[in-house]
């Protein structure tokens, strides 16, 4: 692999010209067979904030990637590349834009076939320009901001639901549950962290109000490390919402749920929206009483899938902790790349890009139909699951065809 790259870069032709020529000739002359003989290792880069404020969440995602890479390698690597093993090259963004860019560039220079990451939408927004210039496939992980796939990019792909899909499908799922329970939702309040992620979610919940027909009675953006939310929640309580929607990270979401309980916030349900805590098994395990019957619209695995069960067991064995949704994403996005590498039968980034664009992956563990990408690189079938903590376990309660259990709604404990 390394030799192959060196040869290419030393050739008098441009790298792309060289490969195009060779590829065109090779298509008839069995070029894939040559590649098969040469590739021993396929470099895959990740850029994640494994240190800094998102270190905890990033590690969960990274564990999923590592699990997938180990599974792929143990099963004989990339078969179309002669059993080449995936080699994972690390990049730490510390959740900083400039570091994200420099780490991405470093990994691109080291010859990765694709980049996975970078968790935060803000970092993703800058890095995608570098991957575009370097013609390197960029598989977004966790980042949900809608604008990440805008601007006619060819190399950026997003498997997970974007902000709009996440917000609108989650609200829709909640409204269907409310309708079934015959408890109408008219007033909605929203708290979200004031970064790109939370603001995107807030904008969609606000914009979606007219479509579905509810009033957004309070919208409170907050700073992530705020030590107290009592005043904010007292203000929300005074607005008498039926539903409180919360988009936040771990510590802040914990404080918000705790304070809501103490204030007797008086809503039908607390609903996380892509929340980092409310469907996190660890958070639930540490806060059993508090978390029971919390809802969360989030990316999730398909509980009906036998493969998902096996993956979860493998994760528990490998990392001695339960797999969380970020881990599922890391795991699945790595398999999207693996699938593309098999079909590309090449480590050429353009060929890999084209293969990713033609993805039609049905053997996956997500709550959606086949993984397919549209022209902008969005997964057309991406869909969050609606979860509810039941008996200390995040349980899929919507959409109906993936549901494991009936929702408890309205939730008695939040009533004042």
């Amino acid at each position, binding site marked *: 692999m390394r030799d192959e790259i060196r040869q290419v870069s030393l050739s008098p032709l441009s790298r792309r010209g060289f490969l195009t020529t060779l590829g065109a000739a090779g298509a008839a002359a069995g070029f894939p067979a040559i590649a098969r003989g040469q590739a021993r290792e396929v470099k895959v880069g990740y850029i994640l904030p494994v*240190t*800094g*404020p*998102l*270190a*905890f969440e*990033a*590690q969960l995602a990274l564990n999923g990637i590592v699990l997938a890479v180990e599974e792929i390698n143990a099963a004989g690597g990339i078969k179309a590349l002669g059993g080449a093993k995936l080699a994972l090259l690390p990049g730490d963004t510390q959740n900083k834009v400039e570091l994200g860019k420099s780490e991405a560039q470093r990994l691109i220079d080291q010859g990765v076939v694709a980049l996975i990451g970078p968790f935060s939408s803000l970092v993703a927004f800058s890095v995608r320009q570098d991957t575009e210039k370097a013609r390197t496939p960029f598989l977004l992980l966790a980042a949900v901001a809608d604008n990440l796939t805008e601007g006619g990019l060819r190399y950026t792909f997003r498997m997970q639901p974007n902000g709009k899909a996440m917000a609108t499908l989650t609200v829709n799922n909640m409204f269907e549950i409310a309708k079934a329970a015959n408890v109408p939702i008219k007033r909605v309040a929203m708290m979200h962290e*004031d970064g790109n992620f939370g603001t995107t979610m807030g904008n969609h919940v606000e914009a979606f109000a007219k479509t579905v027909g509810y009033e957004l009675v309070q*919208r*409170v*953006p*907050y*700073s992530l*490390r*705020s*030590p*107290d*939310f*009592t*005043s*904010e929640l*007292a*203000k929300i309580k*005074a607005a008498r919402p039926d539903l409180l929607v919360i988009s936040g990270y*771990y*510590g802040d979401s*914990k*404080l918000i749920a*705790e304070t809501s*309980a*103490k*204030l007797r916030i008086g809503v039908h349900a607390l609903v996380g929206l892509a929340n980092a805590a409310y469907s996190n098994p*660890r958070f639930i395990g*540490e*806060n059993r009483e508090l978390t029971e019957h919390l809802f969360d619209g989030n990316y999730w695995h398909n509980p009906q899938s036998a493969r998902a069960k096996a993956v979860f067991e493998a994760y528990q064995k490998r990392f001695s902790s339960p797999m969380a949704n970020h881990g599922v994403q890391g795991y699945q996005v790595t398999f999207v790349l693996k699938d593309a590498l098999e079909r590309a039968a090449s480590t050429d980034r353009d060929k890999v890009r084209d293969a990713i664009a033609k993805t039609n992956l049905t053997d996956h563990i997500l709550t959606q139909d086949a993984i397919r990408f549209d022209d902008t690189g969005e997964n057309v079938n991406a869909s969050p699951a609606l979860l509810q903590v039941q008996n200390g376990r995040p349980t899929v309660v919507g959409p109906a065809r993936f549901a494991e259990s009936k929702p408890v709604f309205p939730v008695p404990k939040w009533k004042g």
Partner: protein
Amino acid sequence: MNGGLLLQALVSGLLLGGVYGLVASGLTLIFGVLRIINFAHGAVMMLGMYASYWLWVGIGLDPYASVLLTAPAFFVLGVAIERLVIEPNRDAAEHNQLLLTLGLALFLENLALVLWQGDFRTLRVPYANASFVIGEALVEVSRLVAAGGAVAIAFALYGMLRYTDLGKAIRALSEEREGAMLVGIDVRRIRGVAFGIGSACVAAAGALITPFFYIAPDVGESFNIMAFVVVVLGGMGNFLGALVGGLIVGLAESLGAAFLPGSLKQLVVFVIFVLVLLFRPEGLFGRPRG
């Protein structure tokens, strides 16, 4: 205006402000004596929180009781940091000292990350959910104890500064360095002691908030920033100013959260900060420096 909401905001603001006050007291003490801006203050607080956390997990020691252990331990740690890190650079340019404490903060945070990972940890004490209602305002017992404890510690410290020889030496040094040296105060020792006391204060503040907060390697940052605002507000080096400033910032934050739209609550605090810098750069309680 909603009366219940106003009462709630006042209560929450005062309770949070007490903790800000204690954090800022340590910071202002260090500034007064050493003339350095200690960016590592929040990181020391974080270490204090982990210390209380591990004492709870390890031997089941109540976080409030752990103050009795962590405060002396962090006094020693503070003295050691001053001796090993600050003292050798005492005559360095001011911006170098600034970078020094900033570097120390980064080091401590990343050390915590290596030792204990980025996990958010919470300390599940049995009384975590205890609360009562005054009027329409919710009062969380753990926050009340934290604020009360913080104010009590701050007052004890104030008494020490006011009435003991050590306290007088500290004050002398922070007010008139050369004069203090002339009357025979051991400047080197007092510098170490001041850093030690500042560290003990912030470790105590950390211990007091663990029952209702969470613990993570970067948890000190938000308190650190607030403490800087409080210190400037109260007058750099002014001890009582720090305590009152803490209460003002806490109130400004919670009233802003209750009555202003969106995330303007931080804005309120920083607008106050800028106004003070513009119109009373010596702080609300500071004496103008000639």
